[in-house]
């Protein structure tokens, strides 16, 4: 297996002024550097979103790679190339949701303990014990949510996406997203309130 080295940033400099639609067109024409340009343009957002939702760095990187592979391999299915970012985010979020479901299933069949996300991997060194306790409580509450509710809640409250974009990424209506977020918030409040 030949490993392809990452192109130096200088090679990508010429693509900086190009919009997503142009880059998508070039990728479809077989331009390998355009793929990397698209990747570099969006990877931070996708990876950070995945990390914040999953709370696990290795899982987040895995999801990011999966999302980019799927996007680049099925690029011809993208009807509007200018909406590459939203499309890519939707793919990534779908994969995150799948991870949520898998975790829940693992817990149900006893293969994982509740809240098995390594919290330490996402805590910074300067986090106080009180903050760590609160984050652990929040993480436990999130673990108990349905995948769809958790995704919508995270995208809205952690990533800060507008409701319309959350609906677009989740592939449902605005009303549904609002209902999911509300339900998630109620469960979190109940869990946190009961324990505190």
């Amino acid at each position, binding site marked *: 297996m030949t490993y392809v080295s990452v192109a130096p940033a200088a090679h990508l400099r010429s693509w900086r002024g190009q919009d997503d639609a142009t880059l998508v067109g070039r990728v479809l024409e077989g331009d390998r550097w355009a793929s990397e340009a698209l990747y570099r343009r969006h990877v931070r957002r996708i*990876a950070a979103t995945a990390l914040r939702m999953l709370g696990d760095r290795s899982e987040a990187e895995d999801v990011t790679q999966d999302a980019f592979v799927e996007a680049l391999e099925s690029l011809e299915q993208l009807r509007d190339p200018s909406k590459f970012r939203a499309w890519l985010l939707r793919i990534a979020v779908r994969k995150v949701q799948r991870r949520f479901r898998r975790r829940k299933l693992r817990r149900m069949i006893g293969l994982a303990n509740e809240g098995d996300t390594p919290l330490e991997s996402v805590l910074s060194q300067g986090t106080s014990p009180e903050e760590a306790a609160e984050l652990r409580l929040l993480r436990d509450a999130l673990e108990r949510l349905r995948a769809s509710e958790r995704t919508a809640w995270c995208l809205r409250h952690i990533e800060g996406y507008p409701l319309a974009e959350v609906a677009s990424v989740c592939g449902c209506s605005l009303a549904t997203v609002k209902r999911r977020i509300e339900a998630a918030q109620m469960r979190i409040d109940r869990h946190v309130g009961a324990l505190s």
Partner: protein
Amino acid sequence: MRPWHERTDDEIIDEESIHRMWRGIEVRRAKGRLRRRWSLAAPAVIAAAAGAMFLWSSSRSPAAPLRLASGVELPSEIAARVVLSDGSVISPQGGTVRVLANRADVFEGLLSEGDARFEVTPGGPRRWIVECGWVQVEVAGTVFEVRRRETFVRVSVERGAVLVRSTHLPEGVRRLEPGESVEVRRPEPQPSRPLQQPQPEQLPATQSSPFASPLSGGVSSERQQIAPAERESFQGMLARADRARAAGESAVAERILLQALARYPGHRDRGVAWFTVARIRLRKGRCEEALGAIDRALEEGLPEALREVARARRTECLEGRRDGLLPGPRDESEPLRQP
């Protein structure tokens, strides 16, 4: 440092992670391309491999009897050119080849009449035997023709070598090389001499065997030979039967042999005795009775060389019975009981 959920994307994802993830993406895409290519080519590759395995197993499997090249079971009678599963070809002309045996170790066919060309693929796991009445052809990887007529059988070899067996050949067998041929003429049936009814008072006292009384010969010399010594051995009786046969007294010889068979039920040479009985009966044209004796001989056990000849004679009998060339049981005047 702020908690992770408050940090920006650039703070969370560093350059090293970006490099690492891109390498992973490239590898996954390469694997995916390989998998897609394989999934496109896999059906063709699997089909080709299955076909090759089928051909290999059908040509090499020692357990499989021969079939037609198309995979259809071999017919019991081959009347036209056929290609077999091992690549061999049988081309009958003006006759048929009846399949007598089709096993993993032997293929045996009977050419009743006409010509047939055999192209036997060399190196196969089985012996090929072609029966032609009084002639038997044994082959291993060769091309040869067999021509059968009313009065002769001619075997010509084009490639390889065959063994032609017949009691009418010097030493009973001849090896044919490419370009050689041999013609074996049909033996003339020997006119059977009518046997005289024996006089009961002429029979010796020792002839209490059920075979003896109705079969006793009519001449005094025979009576001398029939009367065995009190403690005559099995081999001694066989030797006496041989002498009688050499003297032209085949009926006496047969009777002695049957007496020996009745007297020594567990002897190891009983198969040879039965086969001698069969030959005597065949020579007299008593095909049906000869068949029974051959079967008993094969049951009792014969040496390898004699076994082949016995099978050939048996085929000859069956064929003679079918074609009406050989008479069946002669008449009531010469009954033969088998023990």
